[in-house]
């Protein structure tokens, strides 16, 4: 399949000045300033196929937004090549932006003081969408996102969830083949999140829209994306399937047992007699948690042995959530994995 986005050795540096401390320092800052070069995106390369839904994740300040801004033509890269939808974003900006839709979760692109439909009307003119196309495409979007009752409201009167749905519709007015979403679900409640996710999935199926999104909400990725690119300090530290990331990192499983009678640590350790199986007393009456390697034979072996020798009241498998995996990666770095 064709590539929608091609990024080669993309690099971005910012020049920031550091203020000196104190009054004396402030006076000196008036005349000369100390500059610091900060690398936001460090020599990254990746590509995205047509119709793919890709998540771009990383801590705050990892360089996600900077990358998106370079891909959308807002920022000029310090070095490297970017080709999006066959265009060079910075060089052919006006032509290029017609082929993309962008939603910045933290920034509104609707006009604050006028009714939503007026914003839509202006965008329709700006993107030169014909009436027929608008009726057809926007009719569908307005219906799916349930925007009908909001159309005559000024944007400032909308709730965040309502506004976000309108933002999404506004970004899609010209039915772009490529959609960038920078934290689209930030601050939204579960219902709106679900609605937006469902809508994005439908959009992807219906029009084959390529979607690139950044998020801090792992459930967004689980629901939408097959592929994850993880960024840390401007470098790509993981690029692949979410499932594999889980497999690579979710190596350990935990099982929690609640026994009927009191059990000693020694009994449990001797029962299995392996060093990679560790028992830990948990809070609550006779509750123990065992952490063990995530493979089927070990798991069934241990369950069988435990149940045979100690009567069990309750048992729970604790799977490590993606969120925990990602937290671990952020904390420990990919190299330890």
């Amino acid at each position, binding site marked *: 399949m064709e590539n929608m986005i091609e990024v080669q050795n993309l690099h971005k540096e*910012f020049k920031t000045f550091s203020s000196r401390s104190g009054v004396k320092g402030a006076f000196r800052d008036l005349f000369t300033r100390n500059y610091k070069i900060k690398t936001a995106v460090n020599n990254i390369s990746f590509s995205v196929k047509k119709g793919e839904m890709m998540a771009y994740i990383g801590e705050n300040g990892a360089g996600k*937004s900077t990358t998106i*801004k370079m891909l*959308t*033509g*807002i*920022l*000029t890269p310090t070095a490297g090549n970017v080709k999006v939808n066959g265009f060079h974003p910075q060089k052919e*900006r*006006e*032509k290029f*932006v*017609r082929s*993309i839709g*962008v939603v*910045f979760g*933290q*920034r*509104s*692109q609707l*006009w604050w*003081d*006028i009714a939503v439909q*007026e914003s839509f*009307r*202006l965008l329709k*003119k*700006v*993107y*030169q969408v014909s009436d027929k196309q608008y009726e057809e495409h926007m009719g569908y979007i307005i219906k799916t996102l349930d925007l009908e009752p909001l159309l005559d409201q*000024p944007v400032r009167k909308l709730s965040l969830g309502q506004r976000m749905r309108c933002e999404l519709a506004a970004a899609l007015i010209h039915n772009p083949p490529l959609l960038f979403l920078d934290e689209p679900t930030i601050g939204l409640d579960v219902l709106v999140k679900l609605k937006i996710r469902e809508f994005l999935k439908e959009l992807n199926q219906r029009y084959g829209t390529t979607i690139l999104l950044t998020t801090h909400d792992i459930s967004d990725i689980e629901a939408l994306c097959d592929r994850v690119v993880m960024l840390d300090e401007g470098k790509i530290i993981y690029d692949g399937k979410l499932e594999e990331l889980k497999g690579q990192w979710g190596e350990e499983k935990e099982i929690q047992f609640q026994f009927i009678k009191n059990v000693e640590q020694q009994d449990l350790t001797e029962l299995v007699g392996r060093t990679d199986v560790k028992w830990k007393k948990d809070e609550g009456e006779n509750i123990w948690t065992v952490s063990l390697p995530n493979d089927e034979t070990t798991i069934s072996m241990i369950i069988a042995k435990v149940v045979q020798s100690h009567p069990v009241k309750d048992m729970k498998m604790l799977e490590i959530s993606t969120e925990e995996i990602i937290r671990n990666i952020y904390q420990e770095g990919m190299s330890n994995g």
Partner: protein
Amino acid sequence: MGKYLEIIRIRFLMMLAYRTNYYTGIVIYTINIGAYFFLWKAIYGSQGSIQGVTVTQMTTYVAIAWMARAFYFNNLDREIAEEIREGKVAIELIRPYNYLLTKVMQGLGEGIFRFFFFSIPGFIIVAFIFQLKVSFNLTTWGLFLLASIFSFAINTQLNILTGLMAFFLHDNMGFIQAKRVIIDLFSGLTIPITFFPIWAQDVMKYLPFQGISYIPSMIFAEGIKGDSLLNALLFQVVWVILLCIPITVIWYKAKKQLVVQGG
């Protein structure tokens, strides 16, 4: 072109959304015109004319200068600076239009709104209260309108330049304030340029400011005629063209080193 017309329309709607601003604006302008009217009356005293300008010409000049200001005045400098400071330019850059041209159109939308709902009714009221000498010569009106369009262009260009400074200065509010005072003074809004000392008048010849207020108002008050009128219009056109140069250069540089503030 359709999209830019739509932008004018939207700005028109936004002005209507803030009607209170509109009403207070009328009051402020009337007070200003009134204050200058009585000030000039006092200065003239029993003298028939100063520097060849009669008291009626003078008061007409003041009234028309303020009414013209309603058309050419806009807050684009502040808006652009704010959009840069808050990082909203990012949004503007993902749209398939020219950001600066869009800004000009927004200013024009604002100007047209004020012209119809503010200048014209305001001027009729003021003309009755202060007994102005209003010309009914259609050519004068036509030339005045033409000069006003150029004055809008010059003022807007200067606003854009000051606004874009935010790219490099990050906080340019002081700069914007200073520019506003300079334009009100040097454009001839508060005092006609002919009342300036000779050396200052000579300096003004090389600056664009008199193209903003002095020239259109003088045309309306029929203070400039014939050849000097043509020269005055030419002066405006030359400045409109000249000011395009620094704007293009700064905008090009600004886009290159754009830092979107606030993530």
